[in-house]
């Protein structure tokens, strides 16, 4: 299954709706004016205004009691005319379902999928024809036997008639749906095999999805991974044992939302270029998650494209801001002397990177005020944007901006280094289990142990030691406190051997004079920060862990690893010559499951909304035309909306192969391939294009008017695959679509009914 759940944008939807309704209302008024002038000549204006005002008066005086009376009439009619026999058919089908659905799949988790699909499909397809039929024949039949005449000679508004019918049919279909749904639910529960050790198979996962991008073999961010030749382009791949990564960014990662643990579920695909060794052939490929908090990566990951600035970018990312400043200076010079090193295209990229990534990240920085750096980058980015090949002036402008940026970076190097840490916590690798639902589901506790790298060690020690120093426990009477070792190992989780190492190193620094002891305060001789000191020590390899386990530290996922509640998870493949494939929906945070009933009910809700929409359309159509015509009309709209809506959108957007209607027909007749094009001279081609433009216009209108019924059935796909039906992606659009069609349809139906002679022979 492939889904890329995107939340529904209410604002956009509302805007579209209003504009469409406005257009239709305008058309309606136009038609009305034309009609009234045509039938009444000069008095048409009066006729029109009378009609409109009486219509709106009617709309304003809707009485719920009358609507309910008409609705219950509809219900009684359906009941007494025995329209509910469909339920009997359903029961019969269920009894024989065993025959048709003989366990095709020995694997129970696959079989559940089939059961749920069968049930939901049967339910919707059984009720649909009944509902369509009834709603299209209700009002025309009423008019034919003239019982509607008796009703409209009572003070029942036309709009109430329309509403009452819609309501009555909707209630009927809802009741049937609930009954069938209950039976279906019980049936599924009973058919579901109980797995002996794992509990039930009827799951209803609640996933939280993130955004996905990839890092290529050089570690540069790209939007897609590698293509291994699979015709289905849903997934792209990362290469094993390389710098390739798949990176997910999850937001709203807070303990309030997730509880006190991190639950990750994945469903990756494996691709081997060799079968594997004797051991690995039997096991799956190894994948590893790494939780990464890397501010520098966040800011500068896209910065240095092109040879000119790449070294600068690498220095920035490595946190080596001093060198970055120097490199910037060098670059500034080169910009003047050999501008060819900085082609316009690269400069554009740099400008985009600054504007889109560097500046916003630096400005929104919460841990320190880097506004001046942000400004410097902004200026630099602007200068890069206005660079033109051959224009020496723009290059010297660029050079100036670059130099000033270098200056700022140099000045703020320490601050930047201090406040832009890199923390990487690799998690235990696991074996990828393809297509086995829920097998790659791992729960991580909130506090994780990990082995720190150089930078991590330096920062940790800087923080700890400076803390101890502030508390005055670092020195004691002009000498290094002997209690330091205990302090470190007991209160800060440092292993005893490492605590001793720290002691030794600090002592040697004191002896060497870089640290000054004064009473019980220890200060750095040249006034730089503790972080600088430890950074230097670590780089000089003086702090290599004596403990074989390395510098083991603990990190808290929510406190230490999230940035503005965002969590970055990198996924790597560990086996050489192997690839792991993923798509956005393949890794998610799993919130505690909801009950299967909840998900199933939401799927039923969607089906109910779909049926109600069909009812609305059917009743509206039947206000305008007679029974059979309205039935075919509604059927056509349903079929197009359900099966061909995507196709329509593709044709309108021009992304469908073969062009428009006329062009495709010509291609078929000429036995030609879409990529070759039609065999015609320019004139004919122009004519064809013109015709297709017209047809496309009609299709565009149609695609806006015809509802997309597939939104409703998508909900079923979620629960079939064991996922909860998401509110914002699935249920909300369904509701909005329904309401969006309800309002105009009621008005159109009521208007047609009102301005129509009921007695016309």
């Amino acid at each position, binding site marked *: 299954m492939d889904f890329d759940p995107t939340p529904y944008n209410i604002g956009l939807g509302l805007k579209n709706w209003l504009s469409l309704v406005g257009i239709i209302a305008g058309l309606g008024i136009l038609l009305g004016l034309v009609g009234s002038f045509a039938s009444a000549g000069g008095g048409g204006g009066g006729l029109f205004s009378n009609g409109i005002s*009486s219509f709106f008066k009617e709309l304003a005086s809707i009485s719920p009691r009358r609507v*309910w009376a008409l609705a219950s009439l509809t219900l*009684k*009619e359906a009941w*007494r005319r025995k329209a509910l026999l469909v339920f009997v058919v359903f029961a019969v089908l269920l009894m024989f379902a065993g025959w048709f659905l003989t366990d095709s799949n020995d694997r129970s988790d696959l079989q559940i999928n089939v059961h749920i699909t069968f049930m939901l499909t049967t339910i919707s397809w059984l009720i649909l024809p009944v509902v369509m039929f009834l709603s299209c024949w209700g009002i025309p039949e009423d008019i034919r036997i003239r019982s509607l005449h008796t009703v409209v000679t*009572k003070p029942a508004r036309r709009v109430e008639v329309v509403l009452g019918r819609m309501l009555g049919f909707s209630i009927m279909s809802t009741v049937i749906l609930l009954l069938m749904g209950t039976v279906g639910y019980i049936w599924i529960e009973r058919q579901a095999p109980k797995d002996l050790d794992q509990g039930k198979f009827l799951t209803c996962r609640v996933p939280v999805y993130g955004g996905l991008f990839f890092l290529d073999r050089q570690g540069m961010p790209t939007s897609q991974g590698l293509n291994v030749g699979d015709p289905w382009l849903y997934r792209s791949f990362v290469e094993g044992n390389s710098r390739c990564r798949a990176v997910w960014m999850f937001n709203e990662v807070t303990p309030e939302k997730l509880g006190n643990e991190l639950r990750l579920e994945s469903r990756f695909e494996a691709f081997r270029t060799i079968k594997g060794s004797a051991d690995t052939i039997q096991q799956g490929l190894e994948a590893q998650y790494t939780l990464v908090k890397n501010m520098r990566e966040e800011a500068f990951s896209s910065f240095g494209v092109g040879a000119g600035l790449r070294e600068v970018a690498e220095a920035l990312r490595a946190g080596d801001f001093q060198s970055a400043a120097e490199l910037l200076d060098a670059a500034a010079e080169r910009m003047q002397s050999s501008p060819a090193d900085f082609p316009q295209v690269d400069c554009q990229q740099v400008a985009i990177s600054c504007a889109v990534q560097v500046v916003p990240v630096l400005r929104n920085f919460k841990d320190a005020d880097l506004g001046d750096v942000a400004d410097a980058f902004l200026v630099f980015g602007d200068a890069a944007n206005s660079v033109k090949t051959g224009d020496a002036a723009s290059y010297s402008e660029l050079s100036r901006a670059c130099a000033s940026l270098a200056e700022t970076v140099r000045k703020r190097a320490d601050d930047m280094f201090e406040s832009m840490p890199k923390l990487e916590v690799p998690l235990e690798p696991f074996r990828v289990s393809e297509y086995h639902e829920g097998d790659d589901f791992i729960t991580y506790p909130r506090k994780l142990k990990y082995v720190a790298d150089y930078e991590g060690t330096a920062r940790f020690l800087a923080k700890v030691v400076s803390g101890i120093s502030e508390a005055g426990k670092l020195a004691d009477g002009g000498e290094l406190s002997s209690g330091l070792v205990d302090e470190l190992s007991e209160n800060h989780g440092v292993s005893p051997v490492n605590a001793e190492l720290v002691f030794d190193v600090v002592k040697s620094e004191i002896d060497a004079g870089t640290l000054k002891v004064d009473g019980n305060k220890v200060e750095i001789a040249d006034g730089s920060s503790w972080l600088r000191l430890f950074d230097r020590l670590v780089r000089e390899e003086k702090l290599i862990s004596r403990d074989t386990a390395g510098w083991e530290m603990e990190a808290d996922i929510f406190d230490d690893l999230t940035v503005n509640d965002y969590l970055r998870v990198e996924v790597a493949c560990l086996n050489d010559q192997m690839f792991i494939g993923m798509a956005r929906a393949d890794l998610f945070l799993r919130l505690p499951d909801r009950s299967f009933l909840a998900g199933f009910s939401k799927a039923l809700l969607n089906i109910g909304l779909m049926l109600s929409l069909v009812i609305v359309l059917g009743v509206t159509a039947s206000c305008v035309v007679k029974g059979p015509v309205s039935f075919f009309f509604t059927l056509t709209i349903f079929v197009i909306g359900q099966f061909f809506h995507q196709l329509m959108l593709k044709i309108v957007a021009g992304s469908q192969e073969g062009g428009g209607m006329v062009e495709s027909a010509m291609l078929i007749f000429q036995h030609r391939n879409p990529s070759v094009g039609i065999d015609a001279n320019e004139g004919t081609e122009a004519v064809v294009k013109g015709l297709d433009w017209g047809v496309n216009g009609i299709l565009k209108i149609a695609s806006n008017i015809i509802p997309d019924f597939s939104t409703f059935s998508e909900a079923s796909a979620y629960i079939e695959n064991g996922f909860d039906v998401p509110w914002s992606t699935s249920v909300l659009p369904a509701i909005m679509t329904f309401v969006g069609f309800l309002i105009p349809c009621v008005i159109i139906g009521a208007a047609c009914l009102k301005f129509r002679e*009921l007695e016309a022979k």
Partner: protein
Amino acid sequence: MSTQENVIEIRNLSKVYRDFWGRKKVQAVKSLSLDVKKGEVFGLLGPNGSGKTTTIKMLLGLLFPTSGEIKILGKRASDVAKNERIGYLPEESYLYRFLNADETLDFYGRLFNISAAERNQRADELIKMVGLDHARRRQLKEYSKGMTRRIGLAQALINNPELVLLDEPTSGLDPIGTREMKDLILKLKDEGKTVVLCSHQLADVQDVSDRIAMLYQGELKVLGGVDELLELRGETQIRTGNLSDEGVEELKALLAKHGMKDSLIQKPRADLEELFLRTVRESGERPGRRFTAEEMAATQPADTGKSGDAS
């Protein structure tokens, strides 16, 4: 008579049926103008195809006039609010056949926004009034023609309307039903309601109407009060108790003195309706007997059913 307000005002009403292409097919109503006053029983007569039903439907808003104006109870025909005070008995009872009598009246009552208690009470009264108490739980599709007309009448009166429009009220009814219908119409008139009825049963219209209009091919041909239209001028009718032969002779002589030579003095006849009703009644009381002519001879003169004019 004081000037009464017009319940219905029709001015220059025309209706042309056009076919799909807009060509004129038939002109059903031509420039009709008439008024119906409050509290009267108005009869609309005419042969088949004269435009009676078309007019009624235009009054109700089921058809749109081609030209002209209609005012009902001061409102336009297309105004739904006027329906609060109108009752309509259609030509064929266009009711929902799967409902029973109770449900039918309940449904229509709800359309008037009448509260539940009041609805039940009125429904009860009306059902008893039209004599359908024994069949109130049966679905309408099982009703005979007469029963359907009666329930139709009941629904027309559910809202206690000021104006009642009856289209062929007595068609399909047996003499008893017809009698009852006519009594009812008169009762409605006593209650101050205005009744417009449309029929070709001339005798029935004659019995109940105050004013009549006659249409022919869409045009108004005759309009006026029944009395003044039907009054045979140039004759005087006298009715009195059983007069002896001498008395008859004396009367003849008196009349001859006034110049009337060929007067007709005879025993008046009751009408067949009377005989019928009596037979039915007596048969109900004494089943199994056949009545002789003498027994059934009328002892009372024909009751013309009109109030007011008997001397």
